[in-house]
């Protein structure tokens, strides 16, 4: 039917609404990567010697490594690491206390992103739910609610600030979950990371609001290498949200982040992300290469780490948020929706590494592929020797829209302790013409019908997201897929 194609056209031309570029005066590092650039970044940030040493060690290690190309179910041209600028920062440094000093273009950017800091600020004093840290290109520009959080002893600030203000915590935890030797992109990040968020919840404190970071790649020719470190001390709890967007550009841009989470005894971290980097156009031109390492460790007993992700953006996604279940009775969870459309490629999943006794993990993965995209789930469940009574439940569902896309499931299961129980369920279904016609017959048009069906399919995951994020994610899903059936 003609109107389906019209919907498709309309959708493709309007789908990525965050594709704007903000005209912020920016300072760049020269393109290319060598020890001088690493020193340049460290100097720009006025870092202590130990930090520079860490970067240099990581850089030297990176030089010995090879770019991983062949194991994931992905296909893309080699990244030219010498053609990237590793540092870009808004020239006007906004101060934390006065909104008036923030570059007005920057404020406009936030407004376009739907996170008016003005709004956020006005909410201070009233009962507000979210504290925001925003990272544009490489530099954290604003952290709100710092004072409110400080009263409880909660630290929520940019990574650079933490390097200066809380060196003991950074030195204790940075690289403790994802060492720079871990993989190629983690090594690269450790060498050149420019900023990110740091969050520490002290013993017995329940963080009273959602903590949130928005990442935005703005400048052309740059990569983004942020680091996030979240620590919940004994008995602490925090729910952390991360959102990201990037402008529409013809070139591919590299995003190689590292996220580390530590949950001590009885601590709990809930990490949610809605990843909406620019996916490239319908022919696969442009878009973000999203190669990130996210890992958490349940270090103490009865601790819990939960990852929830909604992945709709990026040309290529390579991402496996993982949990090391070291503490006895600890719990790891992974809830994921990964959508690929047009020429997008995603290889994503999780690793649950059971080490402690009575550890439990749950994996719910919902893949949706449309257009000519490729969507792979790759997950590892490992029950180590001595991990008595470990339990895992995995459910991996794939939904196909049309017949030119691909969905693949690669579950790896390693059981080294006989008392372990691993359950794995997988389904593949096609979004049915039947389902759409059924909705049409009740007066619901095809666009709304797809939104309804897809949101229903993802419900278990969307239910895990905090309210505001869930609503946003639902809209995003509908937009990412509109017109992809027919």
């Amino acid at each position, binding site marked *: *039917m003609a109107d389906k194609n019209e919907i498709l056209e309309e959708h493709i031309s309007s789908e990525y609404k965050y594709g704007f570029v903000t005209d912020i005066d920016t300072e760049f590092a020269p393109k290319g990567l060598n020890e001088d650039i690493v020193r340049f970044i460290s100097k720009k940030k006025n870092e202590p010697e130990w930090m520079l040493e860490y970067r240099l060690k990581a850089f030297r290690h990176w030089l010995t490594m090879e770019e991983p190309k062949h194991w994931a179910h992905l296909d893309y041209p080699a990244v030219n690491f010498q053609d990237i600028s590793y540092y870009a920062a808004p020239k006007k440094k906004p101060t934390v206390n006065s909104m008036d000093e923030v570059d007005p273009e920057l404020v406009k950017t936030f407004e376009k992103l739907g996170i008016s800091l003005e709004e956020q600020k006005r909410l201070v004093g009233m009962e507000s739910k979210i504290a925001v840290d925003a990272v544009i290109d490489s530099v954290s520009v604003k952290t709100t609610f710092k004072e409110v959080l400080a009263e409880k002893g909660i630290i929520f600030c940019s990574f650079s600030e933490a390097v200066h203000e809380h060196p003991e915590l950074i030195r204790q935890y940075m690289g403790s979950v994802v060492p720079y030797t871990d993989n190629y992109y983690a090594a690269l990040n450790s060498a050149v990371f420019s900023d990110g968020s740091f969050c520490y919840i002290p013993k017995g404190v329940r963080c009273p609001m959602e903590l949130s970071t928005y990442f935005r790649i703005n400048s052309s020719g740059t990569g983004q290498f942020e680091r996030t470190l979240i620590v919940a001390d004994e008995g602490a709890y925090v729910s952390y949200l991360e959102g990201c967007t990037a402008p529409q550009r013809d070139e591919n841009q590299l995003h190689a982040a590292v996220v580390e989470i530590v949950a001590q005894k009885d601590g709990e971290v809930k990490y949610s992300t809605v990843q909406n980097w620019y996916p490239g156009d319908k022919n696969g031109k442009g878009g973000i290469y999203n190669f990130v390492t996210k890992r958490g460790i349940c270090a103490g007993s009865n601790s819990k780490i939960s990852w929830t992700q909604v992945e709709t953006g990026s040309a290529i996604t390579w991402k496996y948020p993982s949990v090391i279940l070291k503490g006895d009775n600890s719990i790891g969870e992974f809830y994921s929706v990964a959508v690929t459309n047009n020429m997008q490629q995603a290889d994503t999943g999780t690793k649950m590494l059971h080490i402690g006794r009575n550890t439990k993990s749950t994996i719910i993965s919902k893949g949706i592929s449309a257009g000519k995209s490729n969507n792979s789930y790759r997950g590892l469940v490992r029950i180590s020797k001595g991990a008595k009574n470990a339990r895992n439940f995995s459910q991996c569902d794939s939904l196909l829209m049309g017949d030119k896309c691909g969905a693949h499931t690669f579950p790896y299961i390693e059981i080294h302790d006989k008392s372990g129980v691993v359950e794995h369920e997988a389904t593949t279904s096609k979004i049915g013409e039947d389902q759409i016609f059924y909705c049409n*017959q009740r007066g619901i048009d095809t666009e709304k019908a797809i939104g309804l069906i897809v949101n229903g399919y993802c419900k278990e995951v969307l239910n895990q997201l905090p309210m505001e994020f869930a609503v946003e994610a639902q809209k995003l899903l509908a937009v990412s897929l509109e017109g992809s059936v027919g």
Partner: protein
Amino acid sequence: MISIKNLHASVEGKEILKGLNLEVKPGEVHAIMGPNGSGKSTLASVLAGREDYEVTEGEVTFNGKNLIELSAEDRAREGLFLAFQYPIEIPGVSNINFLKTAINEIREYKGLDPIDPKQFLALVKEKQKLVELDGKLANRSVNEGFSGGEKKRNEIFQMAMLEPTLGILDETDSGLDIDALRIVANGVNKLRSPERSFIVVTHYQRLLDYIVPDYVHVLYNGRIVKTGPKELALELEEKGYDWIKSDAQNAAV
């Protein structure tokens, strides 16, 4: 209400409806019977606007509009409802949410504001009773894990909620035990009104003991080959379809 003239329709290049005529006036109930494969579901699908079915000839007027030109959703919004022979499951979407979306889409088409949530819930409660639908089912995902009978009851519940002017029931009786059949038929009877018409597609006569039709038509090989009063259904029940088949074949020769 609806006027079908010389309707020809094919699916995948194969002609299924071969010149079908039918006229339904407001308030009337027409039963369509016929052997398996005669084209009953095809007729229902064509009227509801299913994409795979191509109308190659003929015309259909529905409440003064050219039905063929309307999209499936606009037909629904104009008041055409199809109770599916095989209701579709939509996992993760609650019946309530589904119906609310449907009602509001129809209201928007008519230039009305979205339904007031309280009013909506009151409507749900009222209409559930009509088909003795368990309140829990309304909150479950659309048709997911419903028994055959529950699915059929859910179709009638949806029909009651959407208040169409023309209800097409495609073998709503199949797979129902006698109690469920009575409940479903009762629900339909309560929805009968001088403004609302029904086309009841059925394979068996027994549904027509409960939903008493004004006319009975026999569909065979893509055409209506016989029309009569409600007693025709009994005759079919007794004699089967073979005499109709041979009559029709003789006529064709």
